[in-house]
């Protein structure tokens, strides 16, 4: 929490950016940034952990693909404010509410991209691997995952960028990371320096994360040029 003296009146200077604000509120800004990064990493990892087995299931049992993709589509239509409001009465006014909500959205994006990636593995490649004596576990790890990796990483990038932006709505349950700065700036007589600091950091975080993940994709799958869907 940052406590700032409200501005006296409209005549008070209200710059769009101020170094003294950043200096004076260093700790609070860093704390908000830390919460933002933690929440992003946790939700995307949680999303991956659930999405991957779901995508495998959907691919193995073709009949499950339609309900899994359809249900996740409905989930994706629910607005974030409503999602947090659904969770809050049961989970509470805390970071976990934001974490679960965001992991669910990430899950939707990831399941689709993982499935597209896995379905993109050519059947004759799989046939050849089987002919060479690959069992299903080894085939997944050594043959299918490397081929599906670029499409899967494209999903992880989209999910990460979306999550970073969406955490700000967590202000409704008091855990919005950099959103707390933005929202407090708004409530502090539209204190522009605070709003802009939070917003700029948020966009920068999203773009840095996207760039890092693009780099990771290039290292893990140097044979493919990174694609976005």
């Amino acid at each position, binding site marked *: 929490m940052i406590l700032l003296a409200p501005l006296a009146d409209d005549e008070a200077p209200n710059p769009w950016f101020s170094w003294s604000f950043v200096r004076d509120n260093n700790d609070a800004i860093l704390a908000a940034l830390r919460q933002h990064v933690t929440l992003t990493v946790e939700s995307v990892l949680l999303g991956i952990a659930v999405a991957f087995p779901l995508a495998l299931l959907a691919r193995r049992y073709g009949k499950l693909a339609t309900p899994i993709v359809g249900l996740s589509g409905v989930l*994706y239509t*629910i*607005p974030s404010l409503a*999602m947090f409001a659904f969770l809050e*009465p049961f989970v509470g006014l805390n970071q976990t509410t934001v974490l679960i909500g965001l992991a669910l*959205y990430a899950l939707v994006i990831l399941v689709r991209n993982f499935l597209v990636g896995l379905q993109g593995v050519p059947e004759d490649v799989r046939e050849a691997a089987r002919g060479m004596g690959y069992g299903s576990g080894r085939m997944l790890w050594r043959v299918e995952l490397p081929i599906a990796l670029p499409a899967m990483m494209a999903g992880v990038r989209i999910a990460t960028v979306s*999550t970073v932006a969406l955490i700000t709505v967590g202000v409704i349950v008091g855990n919005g990371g950099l959103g707390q700065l933005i929202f407090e700036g708004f409530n502090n007589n*539209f204190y522009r320096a605070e*709003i802009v600091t939070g*917003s700029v950091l948020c966009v920068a975080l999203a773009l840095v994360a996207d760039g890092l993940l693009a780099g990771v994709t290039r290292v893990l799958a140097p044979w493919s040029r990174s694609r976005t869907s």
Partner: protein
Amino acid sequence: MSAFGDAVTWINDPVNWRGRFGVPHLLLEHLAISGVAVGAACVVAWPVAIWLGHLGRAGLLTSSLSTVSRAVPTLALLTIFAATPIGFGDRATMVALAVFAIPPLLTNAYVGMREVDRDVVEAARGMGLSSWQVVRKVEVPLALPLIAAGFRTAAVQVVATASLAALVAGGGLGVIVNDGFGRQRPGQILAGAVLIALLAVITEVALAGVQRAVTPGRQQTRTIRRTVLRRRVP
């Protein structure tokens, strides 16, 4: 769970269906904010997309536009507009929502125009149609399925995001949730969440119908699969 019971009680209480903060008034407000935002975005995005698509430029521009727009939090834009002469409340919300509706409208219409069969366009030119006639009579009608897909994506996203207006002292159904948090009433919070989610799902289903109506059978699965991935998280 008692929160569910409280939510049912809240929904059934006639007090919550009357006056300035009653459900019908907030719903109308929500729809008005969304309608203005989507309308304004269409007026800006469609002519630009159709023109660029006709010329065949700006493929890179449209694809980077969606990444950048995904990275900007809605809340950031809402509060930034509120701190400008636009002011807080519904007006800031409408401008912010319109800005976020532009990328899906623009991208889909652009791609739709680019995917029109070049042979058809050549044939139309050969028949002596002017550039303007080619756009109006050939390219736009053939691009209509993707233009409709973009409209559905943008409209659903706007209706969903309009609930955030309440955070910057605006109206709409988000007010119920925001007020519920302010007074710590789990039932009201839950009831508001249900209403917002219902509205979003109904909008989605209705516009999916519109999209199907303007899409010839062969293209349907392809078009629908592609739109879902292009949407911002609501």
